[in-house]
Every structure is written in structure tokens, then in C-alpha cells.
């Protein structure tokens, strides 16, 4: 275990990164954006070091992703390094990710050298300063997170002021590295709590984090957006990213749109999961994303095995097919959604950005509910925002809480939700309706009892039922399923 070895000086790490001769993630992203194609990246992380190396190599061989990931375990994310270290020793298979801090940077380098694709660290740490140092010492120059997006969905009681300060330190370090010639790709976790996140909530948080990151010296920013499930809305959200960058960021920052394949409740049957995976990948291409984070057909069951993970990568890569040039979203509808999204984001972020101290303004706005996210894991957001799907499946505000949206915007959302949900709902039925919206895809595929409107898809109406098959389809994920019968 090399976890105890002190960190090397930054200059040494920079020299190591150079000597590695790997194409950096930032450059891969640029290459794909230029080509109008989507770089493909899986999530992957297991507790044991050898198991992790093997996993990366298997995925590289079988899935050929463009970027690979070290997904970090929950203990490490929350700074419970002792627990992570203990399990890494005793029972690494019980960890839901790779405890990088416990294993240490020398092992990080081993992982980095084991595969040709650049690595990214994906975690969920309100305070990632130590992990960032270990990552850089490992020669890893792509790092996910942000002071809002890695706090509110990932911890209960870390003050936003603290997480913003910790991430400012990370971003400053990126600035130092940039001066030494090493560009770190800093991905912002716009996915937030992943479930029914209104696009303007996701993008508003990312704009604020991006502004702070750019000020701290970050040169390459990936703005991640979670697929919501509605073609036009999702494509519009992705297309909004370069426009928002142009509006709110200095011109010399390299900004990438990144799509996270559907991050909410996944269908359980393999066929249905794979339909959703392909759908997400097509949306990424249509939206002009530089990168796509993939899911697997085992998503509903648990952390996927390598075989399922590789299959997800390969399926997603079909979206890069030169044969799919004829596939397009409804451009009119998409333009409409784009206009709405840009207006909403402006209404949410501009009052904050007008204030002299952006960090303080963010802290205050979340305390007041003028910034907010649904289903917060943290006490430091109010979660007064209540999302709903409209009749076409797009995510709207049933309640915008205290978000400073214009009367016009609010009226539109009211109208859209009403046309979807019928009359204004009462509490009991609200919970049921919300649950149905959360279970949108399992319901759409007919996996669960309630059979929703199969037309509600956001594309041109499609009146065909999914499977004209009377034979029951076999149960999902290979070996998946739950032993708790």
C-alpha cells in the first residue's frame, strides 16, 4: 500500500505527465468536438487495486472507450479515508469504487500506465483537495466536481461556503498547472440529484461553477447535463451550453458540452435499458456534445460487471456512425426549448452574478431558496423546487419554489404541467404523480403496473406499442436480479 508515501512536488508530477506521453482528456474532447462526434466514457471503479487495473484493461480491450474513469468509493468521497483504507485491505469487493487516496498516487500511476486512454476521476466530494493532489500526482488531468454540484447531491451537512472554498483551491491548482503547461479538464456535475432535474436548474448551477472556476484559473471546462428523456429539451440543453459559455465566460476558456446518459431510475429489462442507452447516445450526438458518459443494462441492479459496461460503451458508440446523418431532432421544437432554457438560466443566474462576491451570493441564494435543487441530499438547499413531466415528457416546474423566474416563465410552466397532469394535484396524488414521473422509463416500457401514455416522448408522436410480442421477455440483466426474494 503506497497510500502513506508523501505527495511528490508539483513539478515532478508535471514532468511525469509529460513523460507519460498520453493524449490529455482535454485534447480528446477537442478532437471530438471538432469532428462533430461524441467521445465515449464509462464509469468504473472497484475497491481492489489489481481488480481496478484489470477492469480498466478489460474495458479498454472490449469497449475501446475514448476516456476511462476511476470512480471513487463513497467513503473516500466523504473523507472517511480510514474506512476506505480498512475495506481496501480487508474486503475491497465491498467498496463501491476505487479508494484512490487510500491506495495512493504511486498506484494511481500504475493505473494510468495500464491503459492508453486518458483517465478521469469521478467522485462526489464536497472537499476534494487531497484527492485532487493524489490525482495530479498520478498523472491524471481530468477531474469532476464543483463547489455546489459535489456538495448538495453528495453530503448532508457541509456548508456551501466550505465546499466552494475547497473547490476554489482545486481550481486555483488547475490554474497553476495551466501555467506549467498542463491543462486540466474540469467537469462540472450538472447532473446534481439526477432525478427530474429541470434543465435550467442544472445549467444555472453549472454556469455559476464555471464562472468561479474560470476566475480561479481553470482553462478547460466540461459542462455535464443529465439526459432528462425528451429529445428536443435535451438537445436544446446541450446546445445551450456553448451559448451560455459565450454569454457568461471569458472567451479564452475551452468549454465542452457533456451528456450523462439518463441518470434516473433505469428500466430493469436489458432490452429496455439498451433502448434507453442508444437513445441517450443519439441525443448526445444531436446536441453536439463533446463527450457522453455511458450507462449499462445492469444500471437498475447495481454496479455493472465489466462485460455489461463494455457492451454499454459499444452500443453508445453507434451514435457516432457516419450512417446516421439523416437522424435529426424536431428543429422547431428544439429551437423553442432552447429559447426557454436560455431565458430561464438568465433569470436564475443573473441576480447572483450581479453581486460583487459571487461565492457569498451563491451561499445566500441557496439559503434563501433563490437558488435551489430538487431532492437535495444536503440541508443547505431547500428543495422547494418540485419538478413534473408535461404531457410530452419534458421536465417542467410544478413549483419553482423561490427561484426568481419571471411571471411569464412561471405561467408557461404552469400551463405546460397542467396540460400534462390534468387538474392541479392534491398532496397524495402529487406523490403518486411524482413517483410516476420518476419511474418514467420503467413505466414507458411497461415494466411496472401503471401503463402511461406511450406517445409521451417528445418526438413526433409515435403510436406504436413497444413490443408486439406476446411471449414474456426474459428477465433483465444477465444474472442481475435480486436475491432478496
Amino acid at each position, binding site marked *: 500500500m503506497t497510500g502513506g508515501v508523501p505527495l511528490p512536488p508539483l513539478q515532478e508530477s508535471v514532468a511525469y505527465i509529460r513523460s507519460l506521453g498520453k493524449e490529455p482528456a482535454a485534447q480528446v474532447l477537442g478532437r471530438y468536438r471538432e469532428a462533430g462526434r461524441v467521445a465515449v466514457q464509462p464509469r468504473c471503479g472497484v475497491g481492489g487495486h489489481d481488480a481496478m487495473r484489470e477492469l480498466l484493461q478489460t474495458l479498454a480491450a472490449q469497449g475501446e472507450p475514448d476516456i476511462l474513469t476511476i470512480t471513487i468509493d*463513497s*467513503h473516500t*468521497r*466523504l473523507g*472517511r479515508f480510514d*474506512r476506505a483504507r480498512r*475495506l481496501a485491505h480487508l474486503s475491497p*469487493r*465491498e*467498496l*463501491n469504487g476505487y479508494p484512490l487516496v487510500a491506495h495512493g498516487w504511486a498506484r494511481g500511476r500504475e493505473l494510468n500506465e495500464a491503459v492508453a486512454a486518458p483517465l478521469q476521476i469521478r467522485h*462526489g466530494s464536497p472537499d476534494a483537495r487531497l484527492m485532487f493532489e493524489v490525482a495530479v500526482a498520478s498523472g491524471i488531468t481530468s477531474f469532476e466536481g464543483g463547489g455546489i454540484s459535489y456538495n448538495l*447531491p*453528495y*453530503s*448532508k*451537512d457541509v456548508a456551501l461556503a466550505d465546499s466552494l472554498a475547497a473547490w476554489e483551491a482545486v481550481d486555483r491548482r488547475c490554474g497553476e498547472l495551466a501555467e506549467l503547461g498542463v491543462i486540466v479538464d474540469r467537469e462540472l456535475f450538472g447532473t446534481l*440529484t439526477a*432525478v427530474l432535474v429541470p434543465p435550467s436548474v442544472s445549467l444555472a448551477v453549472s454556469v455559476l461553477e464555471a464562472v468561479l472556476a474560470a476566475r480561479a484559473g481553470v482553462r478547460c471546462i466540461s459542462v455535464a447535463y443529465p439526459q432528462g428523456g425528451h429529445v428536443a429539451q435535451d438537445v436544446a440543453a446541450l446546445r445551450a451550453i456553448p451559448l451560455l459559455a459565450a454569454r457568461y465566460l471569458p472567451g479564452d476558456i475551452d468549454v465542452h458540452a457533456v451528456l450523462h446518459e439518463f441518470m434516473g431510475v433505469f428500466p430493469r429489462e436489458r432490452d429496455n435499458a439498451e433502448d434507453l442507452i442508444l437513445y441517450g447516445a443519439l441525443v448526445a450526438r444531436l446536441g453536439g456534445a463533446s463527450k457522453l458518459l455511458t450507462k449499462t443494462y*445492469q444500471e437498475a*441492479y*447495481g*454496479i*455493472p*460487471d465489466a462485460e*455489461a459496461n463494455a457492451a454499454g460503451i459499444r452500443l453508445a458508440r453507434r451514435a457516432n456512425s457516419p450512417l446516421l446523418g439523416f437522424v435529426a431532432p424536431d428543429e422547431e421544437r428544439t429551437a423553442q426549448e432552447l429559447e426557454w432554457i436560455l431565458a430561464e438560466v438568465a433569470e436564475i443566474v443573473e441576480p447572483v452574478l450581479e453581486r460583487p462576491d459571487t461565492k457569498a451570493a451563491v451561499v445566500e441564494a441557496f439559503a434563501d431558496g433563490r437558488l435551489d435543487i430538487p*431532492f*437535495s*441530499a*444536503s*440541508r443547505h438547499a431547500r*428543495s422547494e423546487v418540485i419538478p413534473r413531466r408535461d404531457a410530452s415528457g419534458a421536465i417542467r416546474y410544478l413549483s419553482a419554489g423561490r427561484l426568481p423566474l419571471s411571471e411569464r416563465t412561471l405561467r408557461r410552466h404552469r400551463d405546460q404541467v397542467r396540460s400534462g397532469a390534468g387538474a392541479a394535484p392534491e*398532496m*397524495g396524488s402529487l*406523490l403518486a404523480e*411524482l*413517483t410516476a414521473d*420518476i419511474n418514467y422509463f420503467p413505466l414507458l416500457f411497461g415494466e411496472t403496473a401503471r401503463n402511461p401514455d406511450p406517445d409521451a416522448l417528445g418526438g413526433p408522436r409515435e403510436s406504436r406499442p413497444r413490443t408486439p410480442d406476446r411471449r414474456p421477455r426474459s428477465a433483465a*440483466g444477465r*444474472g*442481475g*436480479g*435480486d*436475491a*432478496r426474494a
Partner: protein
Amino acid sequence: MYAHEQNPQRRSVILGVAASDAHAVANHLIAHTLRSLGFHVVNLGTCTPVSEFAAACAEHPQAEAVIIGSLNGHAQEDLRDLPAAKASGAIACPVVLGGNLSVGSHKEAAFLDRLRALGVDHILEDPAELPALLDRLHAERKAVARPRAAS
């Protein structure tokens, strides 16, 4: 027949998500649902270590159950302090657990036994089973309490 119809006095439960786990959505929904059924829900939210559940028990001795969600696969490790808390009586009421209880897509039956061995009294798959279980626990508790009161 709802729980609160049986007992006009407000029944309460302690709810939370395991120590290393930030999955909030089911927690939000379960809290709302139990409240709409009349329960007083002490919701400790995400990332709640055993010690915090124990502290809540001390604060709310009338709580009928400690209901823990664990989604991220870490149930085993996150409940490592549960045996001590139960042995010391710091957590005296039944512990109910639900979620995605081990890492990986291929579940083995044995891990449920290991969780029970830690002091988990009931493992449920679906939160919809919670009201019925709570009613049953409530009835058992009264059945145990009555003879004792008579002695």
C-alpha cells in the same frame, strides 16, 4: 386501514440513509408518504451514521422504529456500529432496512444474513410494505407492553 386510525396519539419513527450514502430521493418520498399517513417522521436524511440514529432514539424514545435506507451498496460497513448500539440499548426499537444492500449487479442471498447478524430486524424490498410492517410492530409492542403493565 391507516396506522393513525388505530392510534389517535401521534406515532413517530426515525428515518435516515446510511452513513456513506447520499441517495436522497427515496428518503424524500418515504418521509412524505409516512407523514401523509399521519406519522411523525424524524428524518435524519442522508449520510447518517449509527451514532446519529442512536442520538435520535435518545431524543425520541417513543419512536417505534429506526428506518434506514442504503442504496450505494455499503449497508454492511455503514452499519458496523449497529451491534454495539443495540447491545448498549442506545437503539432499542426495531431496525428496518431497505434499498440496494450490496455492491454489484449479481446479488448473493448470504449478505442478507450478515445484515441481520448486525442487528437489522426487518429487511424490506418495497417502501410500500412499510406501513403494514409498522402496524404489525406497533401491535406486537402493545401486546408485550400490556402484560408487563399488569405485573
